[in-house]
């Protein structure tokens, strides 16, 4: 990560660390207004009002971030492999065009960023800290070697992991992990029928006290 990217990440963590536990005030927007604004629904003025509010209200900014994480996982989890494949087949000319356009935009952006020097914000820096599963969702994990892996959230991060069935029956959990992987104890899987899908997510705790919560991931065991 570049120096400017590191500064941006520190600013983001500091912004998120600011008194999240404060109670909501009388002017806090209802959750559905936050949700709609984040998803670009409702009028422009309404969305601006919500954004203006989260600029000054740490509690509502935290509520907004909850919707961000969940919106990503919703989109990912609702797309079945079959529908994704069908969509790719029917839209491949558009995807090729989009990829070409993205390449052009990226080259232009890199050129512009290099001209601006070290203080330039890195617009996609959020992607570097989002925790991602490193498990192939199509893979079936062996019971005696069910290792869940994820991308690192930052230096000196400590991780907590919770693993449940889709019915939210707890399977296993761990705290204070330094490694970005966790092997589910085989005995925790003893009672589960073959082909069970596990629902797991990771929370990273960074040295400055900020937290990064991953989306929920799925993993199938043999």
């Amino acid at each position, binding site marked *: 990560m570049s120096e400017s990217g590191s*500064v*941006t990440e*520190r*600013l*983001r963590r*500091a*912004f998120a*660390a*600011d*008194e999240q536990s*404060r*109670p*909501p005030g009388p002017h806090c927007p209802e*959750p*559905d207004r*936050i*949700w709609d604004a*984040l*998803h*670009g629904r409702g009028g422009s003025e309404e*969305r*601006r009002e919500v*954004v*203006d509010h*989260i*600029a*000054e209200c740490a*509690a509502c*900014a935290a*509520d*907004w*971030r*909850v*919707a*961000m*994480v*969940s919106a990503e996982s*919703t989109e990912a989890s*609702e797309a079945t492999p079959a529908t994704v494949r069908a969509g790719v087949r029917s839209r491949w000319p558009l995807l090729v065009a989009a990829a070409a356009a993205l390449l052009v935009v990226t080259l232009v952006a890199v050129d512009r960023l290099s001209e*601006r020097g070290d*203080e*330039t*914000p890195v*617009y*996609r820096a*959020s992607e570097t*800290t989002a925790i991602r599963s490193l498990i192939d969702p199509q893979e079936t994990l062996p019971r005696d070697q069910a290792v869940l892996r994820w991308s690192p959230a930052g230096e000196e991060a*400590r991780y907590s992991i919770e693993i*449940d069935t*889709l*019915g939210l029956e707890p399977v296993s959990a761990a*705290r*204070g992990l330094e490694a970005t992987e966790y092997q589910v104890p085989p005995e925790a899987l003893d009672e589960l029928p073959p082909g069970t899908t596990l629902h797991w997510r990771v929370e990273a*705790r960074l*040295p*400055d*006290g900020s937290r990064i*919560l991953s*989306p*929920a991931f799925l993993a199938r065991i043999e």
Partner: protein
Amino acid sequence: MPGPDQGDESATSTLGREARSGPTGEAELRRRFRAQVARFCPSWLHSQIDDIVQVAWMRLRDAQEKNERNRDPGPSLIAKVAYCATIDEIRRQRRRKEVPVEDVAEAACSAAPDPARLAGAREIGRGIRDCLSRLIPNRRRAVTLYLQGHSAPETGRILDWPLKRAENMIFRGMADLRRCLDAKGLKP
């Protein structure tokens, strides 16, 4: 409080009829719904998850009753209802000033944050909010979304701006923010 899987037949009859005749089925609908609540629910609130699911399930049923022509709620409505119920519970807990169980557990954990670093981050966080209040409104909005983790295209989509404008507002706003923090003697 019973979870949605334990609700009485009359309370869920509408959904039940729909589920039996629809392609997804009630069980599948409930599974999706429960998974959504789990995604939104922070770990310190997991002990309340059944209550949140129950409240959200009732709201979903009300929403469906009001929209007779569209009984299949779809993923976006399910997610929205689950989100709203979860945030309502988080706010209720904040109002009661309950200490999250997780904080108690982590106080004794070796991975607990360095208090000095946490205090420093909070001080900078307060400085950021003060500086944001001094920015030109559109730059403030762009920087706020950027600090929340949004990219320039996402910022443009939320604020109805073209990408170029969103990038420009973020760039200028971040420069303003850094100058303001410098003036306060805050070094992120």
